[in-house]
């Protein structure tokens, strides 16, 4: 062992690392990524079969002993019905309906916007993506602000204030959860379908037309079949996303005691059952990994459907005739419900003293300034210490994570592209991709299990901002390194080699040649994770502690305490920050953001 280790070091030393910067960088990444990605996974796997300290004391065993206790508790105990089987069934039910609705909405709207003369199609192609940019709890929070009934404390729901009593099934549980999830995820389907429709070589359709096919035949025989791979992708990815969503089931399910796997995992974390947490997180990950691996293989298998691009002529919009007005109304209503509606409801609720009273005198900024609010023991939104701290934390965490992620992504790209075919390049590619397969909630649980205590030289990071930054960096790394790899591929090796031939050293090449070429790629690589980080909830909700709350988690806390207005205002703040970032991104890249928002 010692011998081989020293041989390893001799090899490393004989390489003279300083003269092999590519290799040095790769080894550095190798160590960091292995620890940040693999260690949490190993830690949670071991947690699922080893006795916790608490249980060791209770049952008289030894801490760390091998045990089936947690697996048994989750799958076969009297409480497994409550903590696992029912939530599992509920998760699948909700995911099924949410996915079907999202898929249909996405497909219909994408077809209308890309291929017909529906009114305002250019605006719709942007506006319909907005729900995707909202934090995931925005729609759910708006829903509860609207439909809440007396079952839950806090201010009245808007409808009830207007004298309509919303029944429980409309206010909480599977129906609203499915609808809200569908409304937050349909833009993803819309994006994928729009891209696919725009990519279909229009000559494929023209040949069919010249052979005598009418528009409807062209759609049913050519276009729709060509969309099958996209449809499969949308199905699998949306199911994977809905399974890992936390906010919607937490807000809309908890009042009705309707538990999903994600919320069940969360309550196990809250009750400190780390063994149970590990088992549920592993199940959740397995489902996620299976879904995404199936997606990857489907995409590969249907590669033959990807056609040689034509001349890039756009499909001329089909005339809808009498259907033009109804379809236009339909598309704009979806926009109003999914994007504009939540904003309006959230904003109104913070401006109205009493919900549901539309008299002008009822509108003021009381909740924002915190002056003269009857029955509220909290300062106003502008002065709330919680919001200020959360705002600072959000910027700090999402900002640092984004910068680290953007730079790391380019470095991974550099290492992977410059050491092609080597084992280490393949390893880096794979390991930086791994977090993509795990639902954020499960990955957070793994992180929690690793960093809850100090291990060797690495301190217990739980309760610190750096833990939140780290978990974001690792989770967003798949996207960052994917774009880093493609950015490096695009530049190719030639500019750098030209510099090398002319005698430029490594650092000079990096700063004089590569960095200027990658400037805009870097800006995008930083802003995208920043946006995702600002609206991140499921990943951080079980890692925050008082003092490290983010805007997203703070809004959940406010809701827990019944401070609806504060919660809604917090979400509005996130929305505004995200919108500004998106606009800035559009300015920088001068393209539609649509293609970039893969996260």
């Amino acid at each position, binding site marked *: 062992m010692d011998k081989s280790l020293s041989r390893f070091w001799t090899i490393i030393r004989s390489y003279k690392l300083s003269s092999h910067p590519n290799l040095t960088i790769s080894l550095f990444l190798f160590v960091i990524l292995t620890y940040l990605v693999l260690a949490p996974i190993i830690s949670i796997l071991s947690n699922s079969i080893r006795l916790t300290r608490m249980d060791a004391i209770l049952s008289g065993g030894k801490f760390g002993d091998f045990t089936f206790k947690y697996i048994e508790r989750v799958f076969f105990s009297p409480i497994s019905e409550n903590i696992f089987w029912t939530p599992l069934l509920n998760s699948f039910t909700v995911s099924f309906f949410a996915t079907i609705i999202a898929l249909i909405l996405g497909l219909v709207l994408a077809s209308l916007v890309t291929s017909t003369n529906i009114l305002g199609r250019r605006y719709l192609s942007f506006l319909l993506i907005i729900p995707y940019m909202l934090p995931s709890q925005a729609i759910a929070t708006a829903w509860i602000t609207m439909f809440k009934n007396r079952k839950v404390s806090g201010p009245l729901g808007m409808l009830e204030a207007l004298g309509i009593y919303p029944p429980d099934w409309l206010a909480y549980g599977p129906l609203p959860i499915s609808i809200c999830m569908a409304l937050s995820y349909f833009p993803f389907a819309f994006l994928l379908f729009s891209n696919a429709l725009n990519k279909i*070589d229009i000559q494929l359709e023209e040949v069919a037309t010249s*052979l005598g*096919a009418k528009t409807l035949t062209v759609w049913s025989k050519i276009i729709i079949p060509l969309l099958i791979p996209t449809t499969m992708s949308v199905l699998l990815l949306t199911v994977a996303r809905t399974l890992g969503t936390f906010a919607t089931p937490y807000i809309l399910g908890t009042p009705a005691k309707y538990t999903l796997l994600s919320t069940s995992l969360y309550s196990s974390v809250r009750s400190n059952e780390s063994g149970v947490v590990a088992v549920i997180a592993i199940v959740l990950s397995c489902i996620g990994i299976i879904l995404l691996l199936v997606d990857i293989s489907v995409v590969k298998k249907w590669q033959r459907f990807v056609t040689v691009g034509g001349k890039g002529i756009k499909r001329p919009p089909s005339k809808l005739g009498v259907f033009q007005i109804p379809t236009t109304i339909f598309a704009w209503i979806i926009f109003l419900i999914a994007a504009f509606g939540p904003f309006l409801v959230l904003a109104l609720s913070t401006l109205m003293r009493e919900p549901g009273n539309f008299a002008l005198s009822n509108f003021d900024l009381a909740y924002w300034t915190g002056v003269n609010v009857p029955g509220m023991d909290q300062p106003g939104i502008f002065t709330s210490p919680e919001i200020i701290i959360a705002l600072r934390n959000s910027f700090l965490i999402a900002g640092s994570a984004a910068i680290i992620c953007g730079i790391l992504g380019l470095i991974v790209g550099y290492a992977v592209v410059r050491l092609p075919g080597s084992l280490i390049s393949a390893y880096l590619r794979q390991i930086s991709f791994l977090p993509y397969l795990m639902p954020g909630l499960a990955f957070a649980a793994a992180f929690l299990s690793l960093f809850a205590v100090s291990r060797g030289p690495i301190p217990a990071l739980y309760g610190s901002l750096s833990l939140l930054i780290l978990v974001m960096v690792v989770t967003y790394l798949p996207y960052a390194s994917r774009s880093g790899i493609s950015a490096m591929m695009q530049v190719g090796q030639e500019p750098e080699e030209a510099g090398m031939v002319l005698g430029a050293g490594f650092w000079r090449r990096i700063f004089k040649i590569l960095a200027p070429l990658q400037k805009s790629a870097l800006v995008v690589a930083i802003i995208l994770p920043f946006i995702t980080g600002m609206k991140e909830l499921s990943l951080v909700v079980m890692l925050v502690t008082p003092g490290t709350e983010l805007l997203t988690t703070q809004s959940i806390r406010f809701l827990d305490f019944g401070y609806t207005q504060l919660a809604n205002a917090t979400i509005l703040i996130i929305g505004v920050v995200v919108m500004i970032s998106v606009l800035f991104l559009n300015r920088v890249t001068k393209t539609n953001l649509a293609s970039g928002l893969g996260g």
Partner: protein
Amino acid sequence: MHEVKLNSITKSFGRNSLAVDNLSVTFSSGEFVCLLGPSGCGKTTTLRMIAGLENPDNGEIHYGDKIFFSSKNGESLKAEKRDLGLMFQSYALWPHMTVFKNIEFGLVMKKLSLKEKEIRYKEMEKLFHLEGLKNRYPSELSGGQQQRVALARMLAVKPSLLLLDEPLSNLDSNLRLEMRAELKRLHYSLGSTIIFVTHDQMEAMTLATSIAVMNKGIIEQIAKPMEIYRNPKSLFVAKFVGNPPMNIIQVKNGGEIIECLLKKTTFSKNEVKTFGIRPESIRIVTDGEGEIDAVLETIQPTGADWIVELVVSGKSIFAISSDQPKSDVGQKVRLSFKLDGLHVFDDQDLNLKLI
């Protein structure tokens, strides 16, 4: 079999880009017509308007006694009702359908019986050597096979007018030669009218029975291939057809060569703006003969002949010779010019020999 008649066709995209400018032309029945021109000259747009994939802003398109389009009474026959064959550069085979399904599609649209479809497929299979490919997907075919399937799909419905958009551009040079022969054979045996678009003058020369050279939305000249080559109507046509291209010499740049060429024609110096001379009409001759001195600059053997770069009065021109040049690079040679490859253009860039 009918003729295709375009009458004052105008088409623009956006405000400032006129794609086709008041085009009137008739393609006779049974011809193999080539629309030849650089990219953006309006050739593809013209083809797409005949196919019905675009509508002209103005003008009329007739096919025999059928009106395809007329801006006068706002008539426009839908593309799916024009009954013509269409083939693209990318072949546009449907990737989700097998070879059989691809070819069958047009027959299904025509509502042919099962038996008839089978017969037609067998016919195409034999004609295009598609035996054993019936259940393959396009991605499992070679480039040449894809091309043949695309041809079969187009011809299965027996259209009398075929429209081909750069049909050979995607093929490598060997396969291209083969497919050119195939298309030529096909035209001969089917006798249908074929209109095809290309930017490759070689393809146009070898395939077409009639070439329409297009530039900036108008047809500069329409004639038989050799006529286009021998008697180009305009400087543009002269420059576009021929490889290596015609040597162009501006009169205003002057020099000994101008005087030498002027002497061979009946025109005076102020009538002529530009001389054009085909490379094969420049002959390198032994000392004592010839009309002018030149220096041999480079020699490029192509295998079949030699392309020779010569400098005359400070200007470099290219000659093509079927014999190996006897002189070496850097040596002085004498040149003579054959009259049939010499063209003179006026200040409108029109060929004075033809006016």
